[in-house]
């Protein structure tokens, strides 16, 4: 992490280790800010904390801008530039500071005693107090029970509280950075806060994991760990240990095109089945949440972040991915209005402008849906996406918030998916689970 070029960097640290290293650094800086604050305060007792908060926020933001995945970069193209910052928080707050110091062995034992009244060695046949890796807001330990290898995820204490208070801390700074009013951004921030807080509820996560893995059980080449509600609680989740490689490691083994296509297809089916059939989707397509098993199947872990899509968002948005609606200008504008992309009081000139821009954007986004198969390995599509995003982010017309709040996570999901497929260089059949479309509004 030494030779960093802060805001613009070519590669994003993806492994959890790298990410956490980055945030350890931020942690140090923030610690330093506190020291700076208190030493200044010695000489000037009247000083308030605003400077400190600003120092913290800017350091947080700096590490954010280094970290935001390419998924976020692409999402700019839906002019969600404004909504991007909250997305960056999402990543920060889920991966970041909580990754830094691993929980001590005694705290793990304490957490078990608190929720089960027993120490882990009384619950499992074997339990490793040293964690094997970091999960988003906790850490994972390996355990064994009745000859079965288990993964036990334990949440850091106080995460829920910190999320709300940290968001509050960084908020005013964010508004200023983006030059927009609190009211405008608030609705997006709320959405993010809601999702983040849901992620801290492990009981909810277990319920959803079981629900989703049951619903998706019929998909080809996708496997889920079994969850054990009786060994889970508000802060602990116990599931089967999935043997396998993370995406990056998998790619290093130089898998064949056929295998990459199969994994890509499994991913595509997994996401599009949820979006179009369940209308609720695993909204955290972070490479760390997937494993490729030795049998060449896609293992899915972590259902902490689920985005439900209400009908009044689903239909207008996904109908736009069909040429049928897009060819009808009047109906398209109606859909844009419903999605908050064209506002009530826009002038005819503005309507024309946004209509044209959003139309281009969505047709870009919908490209994989238009044909029956799509090669995500080709660079052209992604260059076009980035190029367009770049162009849009420089336009003054997009300096205000547009689009309903649901875009934040739906974009994150879909661009995240596109990106992983791109890394896989997979060619997939895109007509397996098609969007449900209406042609008129």
């Amino acid at each position, binding site marked *: 992490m030494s030779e960093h070029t802060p805001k613009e960097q070519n590669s994003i640290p993806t492994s959890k280790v790298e990410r956490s290293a980055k945030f350890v650094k931020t942690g140090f800086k923030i610690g330093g800010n506190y020291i700076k604050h208190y030493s200044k305060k010695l000489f000037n007792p009247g000083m308030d904390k605003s400077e400190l908060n600003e120092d913290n926020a800017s350091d947080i933001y700096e590490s954010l801008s280094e970290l935001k995945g390419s998924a976020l970069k692409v999402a700019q193209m839906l002019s969600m530039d404004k909504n991007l910052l909250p997305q960056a928080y999402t990543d920060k707050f889920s991966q970041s500071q909580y990754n830094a110091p691993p929980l001590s*062995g005694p705290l793990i034992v304490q957490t078990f005693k608190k929720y089960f009244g027993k120490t882990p060695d009384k619950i499992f046949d074997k339990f490793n107090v040293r964690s094997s890796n970091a999960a988003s807001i906790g850490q994972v330990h390996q355990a064994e029970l009745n000859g079965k290898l288990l993964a036990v995820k334990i949440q850091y204490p106080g995460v829920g509280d910190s999320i709300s208070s940290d968001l509050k801390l960084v908020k005013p700074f964010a508004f200023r950075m983006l030059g927009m009013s609190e009211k405008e951004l608030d609705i997006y921030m709320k959405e993010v806060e809601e999702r983040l807080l849901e992620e801290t509820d492990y009981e909810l996560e277990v319920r959803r994991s079981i629900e989703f893995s049951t619903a998706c059980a019929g998909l080809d080449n996708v496997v889920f760990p079994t969850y054990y509600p009786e060994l889970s609680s508000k802060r602990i989740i116990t599931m089967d240990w999935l043997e396998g490689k993370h995406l990056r490691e998998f790619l290093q083994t130089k898998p064949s095109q056929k295998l990459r296509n199969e994994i890509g297809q499994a991913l595509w089916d997994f996401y599009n089945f949820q979006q179009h059939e369940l209308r609720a989707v695993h909204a955290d397509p972070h490479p760390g949440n997937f494993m490729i098993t030795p049998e060449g199947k896609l293992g899915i872990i972590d259902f902490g972040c689920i985005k439900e899509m209400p009908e009044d968002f689903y239909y207008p948005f996904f109908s736009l991915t069909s040429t049928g609606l897009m060819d009808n200008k009047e109906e398209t504008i109606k859909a844009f209005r419903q999605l908050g992309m064209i506002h009530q009081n826009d002038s005819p000139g503005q309507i024309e402008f946004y209509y044209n821009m959003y139309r281009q954007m969505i047709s870009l986004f919908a490209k994989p849906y238009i044909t029956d198969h799509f090669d995500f390995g080709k660079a052209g599509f992604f260059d076009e996406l980035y190029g367009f995003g770049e162009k849009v982010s420089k336009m003054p017309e997009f300096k205000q918030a547009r689009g309903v709040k649901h875009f934040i996570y739906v974009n994150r999901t879909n661009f995240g998916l596109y990106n992983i497929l791109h890394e896989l260089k997979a060619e997939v059949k895109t007509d397996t689970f098609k969007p449900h479309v209406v042609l008129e509004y």
Partner: protein
Amino acid sequence: MATIESIQKAYVDYVLTEGTEPKSVYIFAKKNKMTEAEFYNYFGSFKALEQNIWAEIAIKTLVEIKGQEVWAQYTAREKALSYFYAFFELLKQQRSFAVYSFQKQPRGLTTPPVFAQLKDIFESFCVEILNEGIESGELSDRKFFSKRYKDALWVQFGFVLHFWIKDSSAGFEKTDEAIEKGVNVTFDLFQRSPIDNLFEYGKFLAKNGGIKESMGFGSF
């Protein structure tokens, strides 16, 4: 026949119901249908009784943590953490009494008498794990200071106790955080750190030609 437990239980029940300690041992004994002598068999005063309740929690804590399978693998740092967590977990079962007893104590820098026994137990435990830590090289053996490590831990303990009394978070999660962060910082200070190196370097410079001459490249 009254036992230590039954007397303690009756006492805790009394103070929590009445909000204050009984006027005299006589009244307390009469109310609980025992003789004064029975009370004095075990305790010299109400204060001694309260001391004993706190000390018992400390002893229970030690039995509990030393009985855990992982104990032997723990470093000194982890042993200390383990003590803190287990102590406050046990204390939770008697929170009302703990709050009552704690708040009755005069505020000040000295240890309130009611914690005297608890402190003895705590300190001998600390000395035990600190010595282990120093022997294994986990902790830095510093002249004068390493003898005071246990005091730092006692201060830490007092801080966490105070924090816990005021903690209103669900499941006392905030206290867990306070323990995790506080004990870790304290142990970071016990470890060999840049300060030690700086100190050694200073000593070296002092011995080998004055510090002044060694600074910079020459005379300006």
